[in-house]
């Protein structure tokens, strides 16, 4: 044992080196905490409205979008919902992420409260939410036309948040996209 003990640091290194080697090829900037300024994590999820149909992160490209994380179990989402309806009537693109939810409950919610989303992704396992680094619903991400996250808002989007923060960014990135 005495001699073997001396080899332990070496063994620890031998275990670590291959991991570093693999790590070299991975992109650390895909970390949830550093999402702003980086592309939306890759996903391909079925839609709440139709489990046969799916959408991926590629579908976000081409226009500025609000990615709104919501759930029927989320009390604040209910408070937020009427304002999202109002925004969608103004022509704002909103894509929903139905987070850790039940499809039927979500369908019922959208039927009763009106559906402001272009479509809602069905993220019942919360994988996309995890990759986004969602800390709680509702959360709203502003995605530019290249699919890059430009802003993250935690909490309810209301008139103040929209007009002071999101709207200027939304317009700014819409303008840069059309140039």
């Amino acid at each position, binding site marked *: 044992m005495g001699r073997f003990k001396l080899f332990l640091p070496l063994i620890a290194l031998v275990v670590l080196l291959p*991991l*570093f080697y693999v*790590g070299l*090829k991975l992109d650390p900037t895909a970390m949830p905490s*550093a999402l702003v300024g980086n592309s939306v994590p890759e996903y391909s999820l079925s839609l709440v409205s139709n489990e046969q149909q799916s959408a991926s992160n590629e579908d976000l490209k081409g226009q500025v979008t609000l990615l709104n994380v919501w759930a029927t179990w989320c009390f604040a989402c209910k408070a937020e919902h009427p304002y999202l309806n109002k925004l969608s009537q103004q022509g704002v693109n909103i894509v929903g992420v139905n987070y850790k939810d039940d499809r039927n409950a979500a369908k019922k919610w959208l039927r009763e409260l009106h559906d402001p989303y272009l479509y809602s992704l069905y993220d019942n396992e919360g994988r996309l939410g995890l990759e986004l680094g969602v800390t709680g619903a509702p959360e709203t991400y502003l995605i530019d036309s290249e699919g890059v996250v430009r802003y993250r808002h935690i909490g309810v989007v209301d008139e103040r948040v929209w007009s002071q923060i999101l709207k200027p960014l939304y317009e700014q990135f819409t303008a840069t996209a059309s140039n």
Partner: protein
Amino acid sequence: MVPELGHFALIIALALSAGLFVLPLWGAFKGNAILMHTGRSLATGQFVMISVALVCLGYAFLHDDFSVSYVAGHSNSLMPVYYKISAIWGGHEGSLLLWIFMLSGWTFAIALLSRSLPLDMQARVLAVMGFVATGFALFILLTSNPFDRILPMAPLEGSDLNPLLQDPGLIFHPPLLYMGYVGFSTVFAFAIAALLTGKLDTAWARWSRPWATTAWAFLTLGLALGSWWAYYELGWGGWWFWDPVENAAFMPWLVGTALIHSLAVTEKRGFFKSWTILLAIFAFSLSLLGTFLVRSGVLNSIHAFANDPERGLFVLGFLGVVVGGSLLLFALRAPVVKSRPGFSLFSREALLLANNVLLVISMVTVLFGTLFPLIADALKLGKYSVGAPYFNLTFTPFITLVCLLMGVAPFSRWKRSSGSAIRAALKVPLVAAALMAIIVPPILGGYTAIAVAAAFIGSWVFVTTWTDLFVKSNHRLGLRKGLSQLSLSYWGMVFAHTGIAFAVLGVGFTTQYSDEQKVRMSVGEPVQVAGREFTLESLTKVQGPNYVADEALVVMRKDGKLIREFKPQKRRYLASGQIMTEVAISPGFWRDIYIAVGESENISPNTRPMRIHYNAFVRWIWLGALLMALGGLLAVVDKRYRKRVPQNVGAVSTQSTSVEAS
């Protein structure tokens, strides 16, 4: 022409480094004195050549030679001269050049100062330094040459240095940090040489100690400067973020702290030999690991330079060879002698061992937290980011224990301490620290668990250290005589431990009694923060050398009296278009007032969001670090390290001077 000269000097330096690695080692192996003697001249030549390369790069910066790709990427003709100089280490290639410059400087220092070492030992130490230099010179020349040209289409203007780095702190932070970081290569070289010769005596520890302590002191300064820079330049008001690269520099510091204490035991008592060797290897390995983490971009950090897998692979390979090789050597050659239990469970040796184990454990918790995202990602366990809560939770308990033991250790004796004597000596400090813990928090703003703990621990370290000083200076001819008999290294310990006390109080109180308010300020409308009144007087445009800025004039009043004006700025750098927050700080011994301008919201030209911080005791953290570094340097200049030791005497008897530090 000059950049080519620099490039050429680097190539010569590579050849000299390779020679430095091979010739003295071969000489030591064969017992050839002439070959062994080449070490010193090769070390000198290497240092000269790398200095030439560094000066050439500096010349290219000063003359705005944008045909050099590195200069074009990190400078701009509008930049002030001092930033053009600090831009030498503002990017990947140049900071590697600084790295190897420091390494060759340390190597040169060994060549100059190690005349008292046996020739074969000196040859081996220099050879190990030469090996490390060879690896880094190859790395620079093969993957990261700072002298590469953009020809024939040289740009007319450079793209500017990252504005974050255009700051006085950044002129000194990298050199000091690298001094420390790279300085551990010296102890590493001593350790490897000891493993090669099998000579691991107290004389070895005596030679290594000043090197380890010097490197540690510089690393302490570098870390403090980095923290101070982050505090005022990043504009977040924080002083430590547990950023992977901060951790990468902090881990060698923790191990280095353990190492300088373990070396003390090895020198004085001849124990912990293989442990000391292992710590020396760890300290430098962690420096290399830090280099790997920063240079390869495998971790997400504000320090990360451009991602380049090829560079990462090279450093990883080098890391594998150096660390793997030295750990293998350690496993094969480290003495397995059962260390006879020459000290009791309650002795200075045992306390220092506990200090070592706790420091290494805390290093491992930091290492684990730092590498976890990388490991989880590599094993496909998912994406994680490990944040401050993990580090605060896991790191604090161990460091608390270290601090508590720190109070006991100075009173202890080698071999065996009398429990009752120590208990008697600690009575006064214990009562004093407890009183402080009761009295101080309410004065500062109320009891919280952390504030009470910090007040207790900080006072405990402080009072025990100075009580011990008082006891040790107790002399029948009076205090003055007593004080003059204390050795410089003892004073070093007193200063360093006092520094720890200050740092503990600073860290504890700043987390508890600071205040941060986000306010929307309009011209002429006062707001109240931390019992002070702040009024935005005006918002103006200011033109800098290479930026334009919105400058706010904020005045602070207390009880109606004007105390201070602040001029925080939001800068836009012209070349890159990058927006920077330039905070305004009113520094103070007890507190800082710190104001940062927020992003313009285009609501009204006279309104701006602002952040006003009241940062209690934050200066104490850096003051503590300064005291620690000062302590380290005092210990190094202690005359016992400068005693002429007759050559070719293997084991030097350890005469005990009056009172010596642990």
